[in-house]
């Protein structure tokens, strides 16, 4: 039996699907669900994602069949057909994508049968059954990608050796997704490759449609987008690799080496790029030489959030910043196989650190783990706890941070006490940004 969850950091498959579709250029999601689902998910998608907003078609602009009791009794297919017809008239998009809520699944509406009737129309109408109770946001992301890869990406028998696709950075759930995708794209450009990221700045639906000719799919995650990669491989014959989200020198250098190897790029070329990037990176960190050491800026850290970020931040803190990220709480719902892959991504640190990694979905558990890792003061005179400490997590860790009197930097979803526009934490440049943000917190407390 799945667990009940205290303060989950994701919504249902429908929510993940909406967030994914509305992050595609000029794509219009059509909800086949009860009238409330879209409104219910809007706050999670935009408000909790650093005020990411609704993009082109999000929030209350989302078309929705708004089925109610009557449709539940008589079936909602007729209403859906009417809604799609009129959506094509009113909403200005290049791609329409029907997604479903739990009620219509339970009454047995066949959305595929309805959308099929729109085949051959000027504009594509896709559909995915994003049934809420089958999974969370990440599952919705996966379903949308699978559908796009199967039904929208065109077959391309001839591959282009200079083009790759990249995903695994989940729009909205990665609050910095847009900036991150941009950084990764430009790194690959320096390696000599054109990259389709589908959701990043400047992407078009044409890129997506033609992505079948890529020579490699790079899934920047050990947890999300892997099923979709399998579908892509099956349908379009493009192989994939998975690689952890990189932040800072150590993470990003590993990233470049893994990707370079998979693409068969000459080692010398990869190492040369890494050297160049380091030449730009370390002069900035060098500026911290005095302050870091004069004021003793090393900290213990607890890192809380999804697998993509927790491993990336941990490596950055451990190997780039020389901190002690000793406790990691991964808050996702993961299968056993996923857990193993994720666990493996926390390791081989230059620092030799061996953090404690726990999997727990409940928000209020974090304090308990901190107390266990750094035992509580029982009134003794000589005592060493979680100090000096910092929590890198989400806004949900506010109470915990207050309780332990340590600063909190929200980096993982949800974030509602920062506004995020094009900030990026990925890559070398993202590492500098993260260093700025973390150390600013420390100096702000002086």
């Amino acid at each position, binding site marked *: 039996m799945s667990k*009940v969850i205290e303060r989950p950091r994701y919504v249902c498959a429908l*929510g993940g699907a909406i967030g994914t579709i509305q992050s595609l250029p000029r794509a219009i999601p059509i909800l086949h669900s009860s009238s*409330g689902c879209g*409104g219910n998910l809007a706050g999670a998608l935009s408000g*909790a994602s650093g005020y990411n907003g609704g993009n082109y078609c999000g929030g209350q602009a989302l078309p929705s069949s708004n089925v109610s009791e009557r449709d539940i009794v008589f079936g909602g297919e007729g209403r859906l057909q009417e809604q799609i017809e009129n959506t094509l008239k009113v909403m200005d998009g290049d791609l329409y994508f029907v997604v479903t809520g739990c009620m219509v699944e339970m009454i047995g509406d066949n959305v595929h049968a309805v959308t099929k009737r729109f085949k051959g129309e000027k504009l594509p109408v896709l559909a995915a059954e994003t049934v809420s109770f089958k999974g969370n946001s990440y599952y919705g992301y996966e379903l949308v990608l699978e559908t796009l890869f199967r039904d929208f990406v065109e077959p391309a028998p001839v591959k282009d050796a200079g083009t790759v696709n990249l995903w695994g950075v989940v729009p909205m759930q990665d609050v910095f997704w847009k900036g991150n995708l941009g950084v990764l794209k430009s790194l690959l450009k320096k390696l000599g490759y054109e990259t389709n990221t589908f959701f990043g700045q400047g992407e078009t639906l044409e890129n997506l449609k033609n992505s079948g000719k890529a020579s490699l799919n790079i899934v920047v995650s050990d947890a999300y987008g892997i099923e979709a990669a399998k579908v892509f491989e099956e349908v379009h014959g493009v192989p994939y690799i998975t690689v952890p989200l990189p932040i800072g020198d150590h993470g990003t250098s590993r990233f470049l080496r893994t990707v370079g190897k998979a693409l068969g790029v000459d080692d010398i070329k990869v190492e040369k790029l890494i050297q160049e990037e380091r030449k730009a990176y370390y002069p900035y960190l060098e500026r911290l030489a005095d302050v870091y050491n004069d004021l003793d800026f090393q900290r213990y850290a607890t890192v809380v959030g999804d697998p993509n970020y927790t491993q990336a931040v941990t490596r950055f803190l451990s190997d780039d910043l020389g901190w002690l990220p000793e406790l990691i709480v991964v808050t996702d719902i993961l299968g056993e196989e996923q857990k193993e892959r994720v666990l493996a991504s926390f390791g081989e640190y230059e620092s030799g650190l061996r953090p404690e990694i726990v999997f727990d979905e409940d928000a209020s558990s974090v304090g308990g783990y901190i107390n266990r890792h750094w035992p509580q003061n029982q009134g003794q005179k000589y005592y060493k706890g979680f100090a000096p400490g910092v929590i890198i997590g989400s806004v949900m860790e506010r109470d915990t941070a207050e309780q332990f009197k340590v600063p909190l930097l929200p980096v993982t979803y949800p974030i509602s006490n920062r506004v995020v526009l094009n900030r990026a934490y990925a890559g070398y440049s993202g590492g500098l940004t993260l260093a700025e943000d973390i150390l600013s917190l420390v100096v702000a407390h002086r």
Partner: protein
Amino acid sequence: MDYIKHKVPPVREDRLMACQAYGGTCGDLSTESKKGCLYASKRTFSQTQGCQLNLSLGMISSMRDAVMVIHSPIGCGGNLIQNAGINKVFQKLRQESAVGLRWINTNLSEVDVISGGEAKLRQAVLKAEREFRPSAILVFNSCVPALIGDDIDGILDDLQKQVSAKIVPIHCEGFKTKIQATAYDSVYHGLIRNLVGEDNTATPAVIRTPEEEIEHQAKISKTVNLLNVGSMSRIDEEELVRLLKALDLNVRILPSYSHPDDFTYAHEAALNVSICATHDDYFVEHFKQMYGIPYVLRTIPIGIANTNKWLRDIASFFGIEEQTEKLIAAETAELKQAIEPFKAQFKGKTAFLTGGEVRILTTAELLHNLGFEILGLRGYHFDKYGEILLDEYLEDVPNSEKAIFNIGSGQVFEQANLLSKITPDLFVGHIGVNGSAAKQGYPIFPLFGQSDDYLGYKGVFEVATRVSRILKNASFNKNLGKNTRLPYRDSWYEQDPFTYIDDSASVAARIG
């Protein structure tokens, strides 16, 4: 009204014949609505809105010392995520020791849908009790458990014997109604059934001497329940309390940001004072019936005219008209002087408002008194309470019968079309629709806000200063207007904004 005996309240489509799709003028609406068949109209193209569950959480998730259990698949209640970590600030304004939002989602999976979600519900309630020891556990029911037929009340009755927190079931599945305001009935239904009144099996009844009893009754005879709403700020509350205290009344504030214990003695009051019929009619009617407590429900104290009406209603109940007139005279004289300078700035300016029927009609009157011409209104829904208020509005505001009236929550495509045609100088909007109007370049004044004052006499001045400030520089939205695009085809703006409202059913209802 006698629904409290039932497990769930009726939906507003049935109880109030509430309408959710209409487009016309204020004058037409007033006439049409009296014929009583607007409720049957629907839309053939629609956009998403909110559901009972959203609004129930919006209303009562702020309750202090409570944990919410959302019995649903993982996504329902998702709106709470954006308030996690920030809601505490507002709770603290009511109680220093308040903790932030706490909720548990039962995370119903496919297996649960087949075999029932009852075990998960138990697990969640017991977890809430064990981990947080709250005073109350509010259990919200979503679409899925309703469809699979979980016996929620049965399980909760049984669980109540095992936990010390008071369990409050709130049945608010989304698909049952398109009138989100039904949520208010669901919440009050749960609160009245489960929190009001002492539990004499748990606490011994209070024994008073005859003198103490007289004193106690005297206190009750001067106590009012002020029913606040989730959109009210602490400053709003303070302004209303100031006015009621000036009339020598004791004030108990319910239900938003209250503590579960505040309800125990809620029936020890002389009068229920509502600020919004949409919000409170279910509660006050039942309180009257169950405890004999009368109520004031007519209007929300926004703007001078409505604040005066609100105070006079209360005064006539307590027989303190004279004292109240003095207060009104003193307050309005001072206020009129204070807002005079704004009138020159606002003269000839036009406005459009959207939000709840009660709130927009009263705010429109406030703006009218400041010098604005009101071009149109969009109400979330419309029922008999709106009808009364609209008629008063038509009387108080000259030439208002020709102004547009559109009914529909969400449905920003209709709004975008309307705005492209009537181009007001100021847009006043409920949260959720302001971003859309901003992208059309309009200066926007939010209809309510958690940190600002809108109500009472002070509210009038505050609204005037903020509107004046917003009109001084609308560059941000103007830039958006020039450089962004709403997701509608150009051809949509050429059509009638109400093209997709289908009122054939209401015509049929009228004939039949």
